[in-house]
C-alpha cells in the first residue's frame, strides 16, 4: 500500500524539475521535453487521484488520456516550429532568439 501523498510528491518533484528545465536549459528540444515532463507530472496526479484518491472514479484516467494526446499534439507542433526556426536562424539555442525585445 502506497500513500497517495507519495505519488503526489513525486509528481510535484517531476513538475518542478520540468519547470526548472524550461527555465534554464538552452537546447530548445530539451525545453520542449521539460514541458512534457511537467505534463507527465500532471498525469501522475490524475491517475493517482482516480485510482486511490479520496473519491475514486475513472474520470481522472479519461482526463489523462486527453492530456496525453494534447501533449503529443503540442510536441508535434512545437517540433515543427522548431524546425522552421532552425531553417531560418540556423540555431536552436534559446539564448540566440531575441530578435523581438523591448
Amino acid at each position, binding site marked *: 500500500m502506497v500513500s497517495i501523498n507519495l505519488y503526489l510528491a513525486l509528481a510535484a518533484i517531476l513538475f518542478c524539475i520540468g519547470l526548472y528545465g524550461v527555465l534554464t536549459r538552452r537546447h530548445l528540444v530539451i525545453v520542449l521535453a521539460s514541458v512534457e515532463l511537467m505534463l507527465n507530472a500532471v498525469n501522475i496526479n490524475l491517475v493517482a487521484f482516480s485510482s486511490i484518491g479520496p473519491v475514486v472514479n475513472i474520470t481522472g484516467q479519461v482526463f489523462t488520456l486527453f492530456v496525453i494526446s494534447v501533449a503529443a499534439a503540442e510536441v508535434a507542433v512545437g517540433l515543427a516550429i522548431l524546425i522552421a526556426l532552425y531553417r531560418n536562424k540556423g540555431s536552436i539555442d534559446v539564448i540566440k532568439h*531575441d530578435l523581438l*525585445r*523591448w
Partner: protein
Amino acid sequence: MIQNAWLIPVFPLIAFIILLFVGRFLKEKASYVGITALALSFILSVLVLFERIGGETSTYVIDWITFGSSTITMGYEVTPLNAMMLIVVTVVSLLVHVFSKEYMHEDDRIHVFYSYLGLFSFSMLGLVLSPNILQLFIFWELVGLCSFLLVGFWYFKPEAAAAAKKAFLTTRIGDVGLLIGLVLLFNATGSFEYGAIFSAVEAGLVNDTMITVIAICIFLGAVGKSAQFPLHVWLPDAMEGPTPVSALIHAATMVAAGVYLVGVMYPLFLASSTAMTVVAYTGAITAIFAATIALVNTDIKRILAYSTISQLGFMMLALGTGGYVAGLFHLMTHAFFKALLFLGAGSVIYAVHHRQDIREMGGLWSRMKVTSITFLIGALAIAGIPPLAGFWSKEGVLAAAWEGGDIFLFTIAVITAFMTAFYMFRLFFTAFTGKFRGDHEPHENKKLMTVPLSVLAFLAIVAGLINTPFGLGLENFLLQDVNVGYQAHGELWLAVLSIAIAVGGIALAWAMYYKGAIAKDTFTSKFPGVHKLLLNKYYMDELYAKVFVQPTVAIGRFFWELDRNIVDGIVNFVGATTRITGRSFAKRHDGQLQTYGLVSIIGGLVVVAIAFVIRGYFG
C-alpha cells in the same frame, strides 16, 4: 437749470467721443470742438452756481449694482462745495483749452490732445458732481488715466513714457488704499452715500479705531493724488507732459482732488483726532519739504511743480488743523494763480523754443510784456501780497494752523510761506530780469495765449475777495449744510506777519538775484552738503528704486526661477520618472523566453507573498 447739472460733464464727454472718431479728419479744428464744449459747461456751471447760491439743489440717482440685499447707486448732486469746484474746473479747463490751441498747433496729434482734454474735463467734473464716494472713486481713477495719457502724450520721449507710468503707479498705490478705505467704510456703514455715511458715523455705529483706519486709508488716496509726502515723487516728473496739461491737471484741478476728497469726507476726519493729526503733519512736512527742493531747482516747470506740492501741503495742513474753509478757499485761489503761473511758464517756454532751464532765460521782461506782468501777478499772489488772492487764503491757512494750537505746525507754515516768496521771486528775477542768456531771441506770443493769462491774472487778483475778514461770502456759502466745527479767522498781527514774511522773502530774492547784493552762492558754499541733498530731491527716487522697485523685481525673478525649476520642474520630473520607469520595465523584455518564464514565476510568488502579507497570513 440746476436739474440739468448732469449736462456739465456730458459736454466734454461728447467732445471726447466726437474727437475719438472723427478727430483724425479734423486735425487743427479739433480745438474748436473742445473749446465749445467747455464753454457750454462753463456757462452751465455758472448758472448752476447762482441757482445754488439761490438755495436750490438737485439730486438724482439710479441703481448701479445689486448684491445680496444691498444696492449701490450712481447719479449726481449739487452741493455748495462742488458748485464752487465746478466753476474752478470749468474756468481753468476752458482757458487751458484756449491756450493750447496756439501752444499745440504744431503737433500733428493735436486732435488726440483735445480728446484727452475732453475726457479729463468730463472725469474731473464727474468727480466733482458725485453724490457718493464710490462714484467719486470711479472718476478719480479716470482722471488718473487722463493724467497718464496726457503726461505720456509725447510717448516717443522715453522720459515722458517713464513719467506717465510713474505717475499712474504712484497714485495707484494711494488709490488701492482709498479703495480699501471705501470697502471698509461700506462694510461698516452699509452705504457709499455721503449722507448715510456721516449719519452712521455720528450715530456711533462705527468704532473709533475703525474710523481712524478708514480715514487714514482714504487719506492715503489723497496723498497719492495730491502728491503729498511720501508719494509726491510723480508730480515733478509729470512735468514731461505739455505745459497746458501741467497747468490744468497738475496744478489746478486733479492734484487738488485729494484736498477735495478730504474736504468731502471732512466729518469723517473730524471724528478721529488721530486722522486729523496725520493729515496736518503730512501737509506740513510736504509743504516745507517741497519748498526746500524748490529753492535750488532751476527747471522753471519743476520749480512750479514743487511749489504746487508745497501749496497742496498747505491745504492739507489747513484741513488737518480744522481749517475747512481755509483749505478749500486756498484750493480755489491756488487753482487760479498756479494755473496762471504754469500758463505763463508755458508761454515763456514756447517763446524760447522749449527750453525750461531758468539759467538760459533772463531779460524776458522787456521782450514779453503781457506774460511777464501776468507772471509777476501770479508770483505776488502766491507769495501772499495783499490784496491778491493768495494773501487772503494763505492767511486763513496760517490762522487755522495757529488755532490748531500746534506751534510746530505753525512755525513750519510760516517758514514755508517765507521760502515760497523767496523761490518764486528767485525764479522771477532769474528768468525775467537781467540780460537774456538763451540763443533764440524770444518775443511775445499771440493773443490766444496772452488772453487766458490776462483772465487768470484778473482772477488771481479778485478771487481772494470773496472770502475776506470783511466779508465771509464763501465761508457762509460752504458751511450751509455741513457741520465742520469752528472756523478760525486770523487777527491783525497774523496778517502783518504774513505780509512781513512775504516781503522778506521777496526782498531776499531781490537782493540775491536782481541786485546781486548778496552772492548767489552764499548759502550753497556754506552748506554744500545740504545743497547737494536738495538738488537731488533728498534722493527720494533713488531710495524708492532701491527699497521697492528693485526688491520686487528681484522677488519676481526668484519666483520665476522657482516656478520653472521647482513647480513646473516637479511636473516634468513626474512625467520623466514615469517614462523612465516604463523604460526600465521595458528593458526586462530582453527577448529571452526563459526570462519571461522566470519573471512569471517570481512575479507570481511575489504577488502571492504581498497578498498574504496584506491579508495577514503567516501568523
